[in-house]
């Protein structure tokens, strides 16, 4: 998967036609094989753009910064990124007419070790669902992809309650409350987060296991039904916490119980908690 040439051509063409002010893409980080996001405003810098299977980050996150807000933006999206873009469009965070979206038919990206990332092996939507222009040939045949429950979730759910409690206590203990997960998430766009509200800060000022439990649980439940499993939070986490466990747990419950709901796949679909069905499970309620 290498679309470097095509993306450079598209960006150069868009700048020449005056259709965009900023182009959001990837460039080499300059010291190893990995890539970092780049915001290009000068047409001469277009040659910096690359796209290979090392392009791991979700660029939609950069649509919530001041560099791109209220500007005409060109952006590269993979399948998972396009789902989060879909949600941002539905939630009126960006305007579609300001965007030029280059969609990728994604064959999966690789981590530092060179292995295909876990969310890519389980991916349900490899092709971009929002785009002005598609690159590559469609990966998903119609209806050939089936939902696989995350292997980590299955393994943890089989363990007894006490072991799970001990495992998660260690996870929350290692959190340093830097909020990188929140800043790296495209769907965490609130100007003032509820976790940072005055009462919550006073109440949870210290960085303790208990405070991390409160913050991460609230965060994951606010993203339940909206998380698209791009794993930007996990890539950003300096403590390497397995944050996907919380999100995938919510996702699997929602997929199994609420009419196979997947966030951001259908345009104008606001997420699982914005709708209901009369057939929703009721057996856990007295």
């Amino acid at each position, binding site marked *: 998967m290498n679309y470097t040439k095509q993306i450079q051509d598209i960006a150069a063409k868009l700048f020449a036609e005056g259709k965009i002010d900023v182009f959001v893409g990837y460039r080499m980080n300059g010291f190893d094989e990995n890539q970092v996001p780049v915001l290009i405003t000068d047409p001469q810098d277009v040659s910096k753009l690359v796209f290979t299977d090392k392009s791991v980050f979700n660029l939609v996150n950069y649509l919530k910064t001041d560099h791109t807000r209220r500007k005409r933006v060109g952006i590269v999206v993979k399948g998972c990124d396009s789902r989060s873009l879909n949600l941002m469009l539905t939630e009126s965070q960006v305007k579609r007419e300001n965007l030029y979206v280059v969609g990728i038919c994604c064959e999966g990206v690789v981590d530092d070790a060179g292995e295909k990332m876990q969310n890519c092996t389980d991916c349900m939507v490899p092709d971009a669902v929002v785009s002005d222009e598609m690159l590559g040939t469609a990966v998903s045949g119609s209806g050939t992809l089936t939902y696989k429950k995350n292997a980590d979730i299955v393994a*943890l*759910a089989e363990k007894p*309650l*006490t072991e*799970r*409690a*001990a495992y*998660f*206590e260690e996870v*929350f*203990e290692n959190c340093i409350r830097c909020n990188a997960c929140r800043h790296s998430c495209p769907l965490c766009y609130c100007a003032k987060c*509820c976790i940072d509200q005055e009462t919550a800060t006073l109440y949870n000022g*210290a960085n*303790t*296991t*208990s*405070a991390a*439990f*409160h913050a991460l*649980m*609230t965060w*994951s*439940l606010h993203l*339940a*039904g909206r998380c698209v499993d791009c794993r930007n939070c996990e890539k950003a986490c300096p403590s390497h916490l397995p944050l996907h*466990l*919380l999100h995938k*747990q*919510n996702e699997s*419950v*929602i997929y199994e*119980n*609420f009419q196979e709901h997947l966030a951001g796949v259908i345009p104008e679909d606001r997420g*699982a*908690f*914005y709708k*209901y*069905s*009369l057939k*929703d*499970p*009721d057996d*856990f*309620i*007295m």
Partner: protein
Amino acid sequence: MEAEVKDQLVSIEKPELIAPPNWEPVIMGILCNWCSYAGSDLTGTSRIQYPPNIRIIRVPCSSRVDPWFLIKSLQTTADGVLVSGCHPGDCHYISGNYFARRRFLVTKKLLNFVGFHENRIQFSWVSAAEGPKFAKVVNKVTEDIKKLGPLHLYKKENFEKK
């Protein structure tokens, strides 16, 4: 830190070891204004006894309940939580409890996933006419939580510097 991990593991497996004598659980009861709160009122006016362990908070609708309420109460003083609202179809705001039902399921499963016993987070539908049912529900929840013992998992005071 090791002592605390041991503590909470003991609390799940052998409650009798660390439950102090005459220990009574604290249960957070979040009730919807239109059905369950009126139902609990009827229980009282009908002179039906129910355990005093429940601390009741009134909310406008069960869909007002943010999962944050449950997380915060389990983290501070509560040993268990009971959320109660109108029966499906009876919501004063037409569809509030349908939305709430989805959130409750996901919240309960997630809290269970990170180590809380499923009986610590309970939900019920109680209408304004169901005084006896409310007493039955509170009795059951209190019994369940007495069996589990005091909650130590992620409790705020366990992690504060002394």
